[in-house]
C-alpha cells in the first residue's frame, strides 16, 4: 500500500510551477489564444432586456453580412422567456470578431418586454412582478435547536444587527468559452477554458450526439474559473454547431459584459442576527433571519458558522430576481456566513467589553472533530495564537481608541473552516519510456492550483528525478478520468492515484530490468538520477530505462487509503487604516494562518493562499454587482466601475502554513477555498475596530463607511 515518504526530498519544499515562466512571459497559449487554421470568430448575441418574451428572431440580415459564415438561433421565437439581461439569443461566426459583432447586431429580435425585478428590494416589494409563477421568495421554515427565545432572556448582553453583502461575480480574467474544431464529420477537438475537461466533453457528447471516443477536450492552461466553469455552456455548444455548419473551427468567448451578466456569480447575503452572551463571554442564544439572491438559484450559507450556540434558530428566505444565475464561487456560502457571523461576534464582544480574540476561542465547540481524529478546536487555538503574534495583536485596542487624527488604525480577525477532501475514483497513468522520459496522464486540469506541478513533484520524488524531467500531461479529456477542479478537491483526488501510478511504474521497471543486472527487484532503488543496486550506484536513470528495450512501462494508479484527508480550519487577521474624513479604507496587512494536511509544494500552496486572500480583499473592499431597478440592467459590467484591486491596493500578506508533523500524517487536503473565506470578515472587523462603528454593508467603500459614520452620529 502506497504511503507518503517519511523524509521527502521534494515534497513540501518550494518548487516553482512548471508553466510559471511561460505564463509570466506571455508564451503560454490559453484556450482563447488558440488559432487553428481557418479560424472563425464567434459572437453571442444576448438579450438587452431583463424580463421578456422572445416574439420573433430574424437571422437573415446577419446571414448576408460580409464575412459571416454561420448563424444560429439559441432562443426560440414564441417560446423563450428571458429571465435576465445577457441571456442567450443567437450566435454568429464570421471571418473577424468585428464582422461577427456587426452581424450579431444586425439580427432582428422582437421582444415583448415584461416588468422585471432587478434587486432584492424590488423583488420583495408588494405587488412586484413575479420571477416564478409561485412568487419571488421562498421561505424555509425556521430551523430551531433548543429554546433560543428563552435562552436569550438570560443573556447579559445582546446585540441585534443587520449585515449585508452584495452579489459579486467571478470576473475570470479569461472569459468563459472555447474553440471548437471538427476533425471529421463525427469527431471534434475542443480547446476549452474550463475547470472540468471531462464535464465539457460530456456536454459535447450529450448535446451533439457524439460518441465519447470522438470528443477531445484540451485545457493546457486556463485563465480562472473559481467555480463557474464546469460546463460547455450554451455558447460552447453553439460554437460547435456553428463550426459544423461553417466547416471551419469557431472560437466563442463571452465578452466582458456577458461574463458579468451570465458567467455566474456569488449570491448576496443579508442577515438580521440577534446574538446573546453571558457576562463570562459564553454565547447563549442566536436568532437569525437571513436572505439572499442567487438570481433564480439558491443563496443559503452556514450559520452560526464555526461557533457553538446551543439555543438557536435560523430562517432563510430565497429571493429571486431577474439577474444572472449564481454559480459555485470559491467556497460557496462560506464567505457570506463567515462575514455576518464574525461581524456579530465582534459587535457582541465590543458590547461585552471583551477582547474579541478571547471571545472567539471561548465559543468554539469543545470537540470539533474532523477526519483523522483531529479536534479542529485545538487547531484554531494554536492558529489564532500564531496569527496574533504575526499581526501584533498585543497592539489591539478597544473600539474608539485608535487614533486622534483622521486616520484610524484597526485590527480584526475571523475564523473559517472547509472540507477539502478528495474523490476516490480518479486515475493517473504513469509512463516510463525507454529514452528515460516520464509522462503522467490524467483528465484533470490546472486552473492555477498548481495541479500540473504537484503531480510532477510526486513522480520526481518517487523516481529520484528532478521535477523538470517529468512531463505532466493533464488537461486532456481522453486521458484516464481525473477530477474536476472544484471545492478544493483536485489535489487530494489526484495526488493519491499519482503516487500509486508512479510507484507501480517504478516497481514494474525494477521487475523488468533487475534480471539484466543480476539482481532482484527489491535490491533496486533510485536516487539522485541514478539506479542503485543494494545501495550502490549502477547506472544513470537514462541507462536504466534503456534496458527496457522497445517497451515502455505503463501503469495506472488509483486512490489508496490514508493518503488524503478532509476538514481544515484557518484564521485571518487584518490591519487597516480608515480615513474617517474620506471613508477610504486601506488594508495594511493580512495574516493568513492555514492548515491543509500534507503540503506537497509549498510555493504553489502559498500561491493559492495569496490568491484566496486577494479575492477576499476584493470582496471586502471593492466588489459589487450593481443592478438598475429602472432598466433591469447591470450598471457596471466592466472592470472599471466593477472595482477590483490593482497592484497598489494589495497589502503585505503574510501566509503562515500550519504545517506540523501532526498535520502531515493526515495526508493531502485541498487549499483552494479556505483562504478566501475569512478575509472580508477580518477586514470588516478591523474597520469597525478602527472607527468604533460597525459598517454593516460590504464592500467597505467610502460610501458605506461614511454612511455608517453618519448614521452613528445621527444616533449619538
Amino acid at each position, binding site marked *: 500500500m502506497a504511503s507518503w515518504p517519511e523524509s521527502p526530498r521534494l515534497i513540501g519544499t518550494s518548487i516553482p510551477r512548471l508553466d510559471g515562466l511561460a505564463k509570466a512571459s506571455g508564451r503560454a497559449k490559453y484556450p482563447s489564444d488558440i488559432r487553428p487554421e481557418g479560424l472563425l470568430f464567434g459572437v453571442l448575441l444576448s438579450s438587452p432586456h431583463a424580463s421578456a418574451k422572445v416574439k420573433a428572431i430574424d437571422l437573415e440580415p446577419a446571414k448576408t453580412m460580409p464575412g459571416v459564415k454561420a448563424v444560429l438561433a439559441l432562443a426560440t421565437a414564441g417560446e423563450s422567456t428571458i429571465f435576465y439581461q445577457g441571456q442567450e439569443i443567437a450566435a454568429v461566426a464570421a471571418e473577424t470578431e468585428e464582422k461577427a459583432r456587426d452581424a450579431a447586431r444586425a439580427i432582428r429580435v422582437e421582444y415583448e418586454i415584461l416588468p422585471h425585478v432587478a434587486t432584492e428590494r424590488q423583488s420583495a416589494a408588494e405587488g412586484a412582478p413575479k420571477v416564478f409563477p409561485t412568487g419571488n421568495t421562498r421561505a424555509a421554515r425556521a430551523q430551531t435547536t433548543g429554546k433560543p427565545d428563552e435562552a436569550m432572556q438570560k443573556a447579559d448582553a445582546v446585540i441585534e444587527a443587520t449585515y449585508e453583502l452584495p452579489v459579486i461575480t467571478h470576473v475570470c480574467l479569461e472569459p468563459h468559452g472555447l474553440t471548437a474544431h471538427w476533425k471529421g464529420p463525427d469527431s471534434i477537438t475542443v480547446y476549452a477554458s474550463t475547470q472540468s475537461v471531462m464535464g465539457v466533453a460530456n456536454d459535447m457528447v450529450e448535446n451533439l450526439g457524439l460518441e465519447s471516443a470522438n470528443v477531445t477536450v484540451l485545457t493546457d492552461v486556463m485563465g480562472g474559473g473559481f467555480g463557474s466553469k464546469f460546463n460547455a455552456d450554451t455558447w460552447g455548444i453553439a460554437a460547435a454547431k456553428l463550426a459544423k455548419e461553417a466547416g471551419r473551427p469557431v472560437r466563442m468567448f463571452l465578452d466582458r459584459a456577458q461574463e458579468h451578466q451570465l458567467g455566474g456569480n456569488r449570491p448576496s447575503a443579508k442577515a438580521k442576527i440577534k446574538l446573546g452572551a453571558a457576562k463570562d463571554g459564553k454565547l447563549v442564544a442566536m436568532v437569525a433571519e437571513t436572505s439572499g439572491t442567487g438570481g433564480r438559484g439558491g443563496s443559503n450559507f452556514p450559520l452560526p458558522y464555526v461557533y457553538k450556540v446551543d439555543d438557536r434558530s435560523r430562517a432563510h428566505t430565497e429571493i429571486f430576481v431577474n439577474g444572472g444565475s449564481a454559480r459555485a464561487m470559491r467556497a460557496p456560502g462560506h464567505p457570506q456566513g463567515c462575514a455576518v457571523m464574525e461581524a456579530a461576534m465582534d459587535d457582541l464582544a465590543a458590547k461585552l467589553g471583551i477582547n474579541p480574540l478571547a471571545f472567539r476561542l471561548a465559543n468554539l465547540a469543545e470537540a470539533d472533530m474532523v477526519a483523522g481524529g483531529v479536534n479542529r478546536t485545538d487547531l484554531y487555538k494554536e492558529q489564532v495564537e500564531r496569527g496574533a503574534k504575526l499581526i501584533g495583536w498585543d497592539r489591539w485596542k478597544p473600539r474608539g481608541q485608535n487614533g486622534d487624527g*483622521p486616520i484610524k488604525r484597526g485590527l480584526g480577525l475571523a475564523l473559517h473552516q472547509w472540507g477539502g477532501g478528495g474523490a476516490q475514483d480518479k486515475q493517473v497513468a504513469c509512463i516510463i519510456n525507454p529514452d528515460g522520459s516520464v509522462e503522467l496522464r490524467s483528465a484533470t486540469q490546472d486552473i492555477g492550483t498548481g495541479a500540473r506541478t504537484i503531480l510532477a513533484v510526486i513522480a520526481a520524488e518517487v523516481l529520484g528525478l528532478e521535477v523538470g524531467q517529468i512531463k505532466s500531461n493533464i488537461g486532456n479529456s481522453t486521458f484516464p478520468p481525473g477530477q474536476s477542479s472544484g471545492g478544493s478537491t483536485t489535489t487530494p483526488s489526484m495526488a493519491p492515484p499519482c503516487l500509486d501510478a508512479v510507484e507501480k511504474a517504478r516497481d514494474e521497471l525494477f521487475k523488468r530490468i533487475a534480471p539484466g543486472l543480476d539482481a532482484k527487484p527489491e535490491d533496486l532503488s533510485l536516487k539522485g538520477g541514478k539506479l542503485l543496486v543494494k545501495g550502490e550506484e549502477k547506472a544513470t536513470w537514462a541507462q536504466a530505462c534503456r534496458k527496457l528495450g522497445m517497451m515502455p512501462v505503463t501503469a495506472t494508479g488509483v486512490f489508496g487509503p490514508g493518503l488524503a484527508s478532509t476538514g481544515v480550519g484557518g484564521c485571518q487577521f487584518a490591519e487597516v487604516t480608515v480615513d474617517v*474624513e474620506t471613508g*477610504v479604507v486601506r488594508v495594511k496587512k493580512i495574516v493568513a494562518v492555514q492548515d491543509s494536511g500534507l503540503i506537497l509544494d509549498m510555493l504553489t500552496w502559498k500561491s493559492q493562499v495569496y490568491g484566496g486572500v486577494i479575492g477576499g480583499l476584493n470582496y471586502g*473592499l471593492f466588489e459589487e454587482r450593481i443592478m*438598475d*431597478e429602472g*432598466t433591469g440592467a447591470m450598471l457596471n459590467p466592466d472592470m472599471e466601475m466593477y472595482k477590483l484591486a*490593482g497592484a497598489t491596493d494589495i497589502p503585505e500578506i503574510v501566509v503562515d502554513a500550519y504545517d506540523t508533523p501532526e498535520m502531515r500524517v493526515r495526508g493531502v487536503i485541498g487549499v483552494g477555498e479556505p483562504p478566501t473565506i475569512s478575509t472580508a470578515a477580518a477586514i470588516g472587523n478591523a474597520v469597525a475596530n478602527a472607527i468604533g462603528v460597525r459598517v454593516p454593508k460590504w464592500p467597505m467603500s*467610502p460610501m458605506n463607511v461614511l*454612511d455608517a459614520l453618519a448614521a452613528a452620529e445621527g444616533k449619538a
Partner: protein
Amino acid sequence: MKAFEYSSPTTPEDALKDLAGPGTVEALSGGTDLIGRMKDYVASPDRVVYLKDVKALAGIAEKSGGLEIGAGTRLVDLSADPIVRKRLPALHQATVEVGTPQIRNMATVGGNLLQRPRCWYFRNGHGLLGTKDGKSLVREGDNRYHAIFLTEGDALFINPSSLAVPLIALNAQATVVGPGGERTIPVEKLYQVPKSSDDRELTLAPGELLTKVTIPAGEVKNGFFEARQKQSHDWPLVAAAVGLKMNGDTVGDGRVVLYGVAPIPWRSEAAEKAIRGKALTRETAEAAAAAAVEGAKPLSMNGYKVALVKTTVKRALLDAAGDRYWEEA
C-alpha cells in the same frame, strides 16, 4: 463599432478641414475615451480624425503670457514637466492621479478636458440625461457617483475631467480654432449644463479644435486633494483644487473648484468668499469647507459626497498651505 472613415492630418489647418465633415466627425487623440464609446455604440461617427500626428498640438512652453500646454500633450509628459511640478502642484497632483500609467501614456490634455461623462446610464445608451420614457433613470436609480449640486435640473451626471478642476482654479484659458477663426475662452467656459437631451455638456461646436490651454503668469498658491476608493485605476469620488492669489499672508483672490459634484466643474463661490481676506489656517479651511456644502442637494444615494466636499475643500486649502495634517506620520 460602426465602420468609419479615418484621416490622419499633420497640421491644424488640415485637421480643421477634415473635421468639417461631411457626416458626423470625432477627433481622436489618445483614444482612451473615444474608442470605448465607439465600441459601446455610444458614439458612432462617420469619420474619425486622428490628432496625434499634428505635432503642433503637443508640448509645454513658457511664454510671456504664461505657461502654454498643447492640447495634444500626453498626461505622462504633463506630469513629468518640471515647471508644472514646481509651480503648479495642484495640476501635477491631479495629473499623476488620473487612471493608470497606461492611460496617462495615451491620454492627452485636450482629450481629458473634452472626454464625455462616465455616467453609467449615458454609457449604457440612455442618453446624456439618462432618461427612459421621459423619466430620469438617475434620480430613481443608482446615483452613488452622480451630482449633488444643480440637482433640481435634469443633468445629474458629473463632469469627468480631473484636469479641468486645477486648470480652472489656476484661471487657465483655452484656445479654440474653428472654421470662423480662433477664440480664447476660460477653461470654465468649455462646459455648460445641458437643458435637454439634445444639448451637449461641451460648448465646442462640431468642427472646432482645442489647440492649447494657457495658465496665466503670476504667482498663485495652489493645492489639490482627491478622495478615491482605489489607489490606482480609479476615478476620484470628489476632488478639490484651489488657486490663491495671496496678499501677504492673507488670501486676496481665491478660487475653489470641485470635481465630482455637478455636471460642470463646480466653482464654490461660497467657499471662495469664505477665504477672501483670511489667513490660510485650519480655521479658515474649516469655514470654507462648511461654506462649500451650502446648497448641496444630494440624490437618493450620494449623501456621502457632502462629507467628501468638506474634506476635499479643507484639505486642498491646507495642501496649498503645506499643512498635510491627514498624512500618516
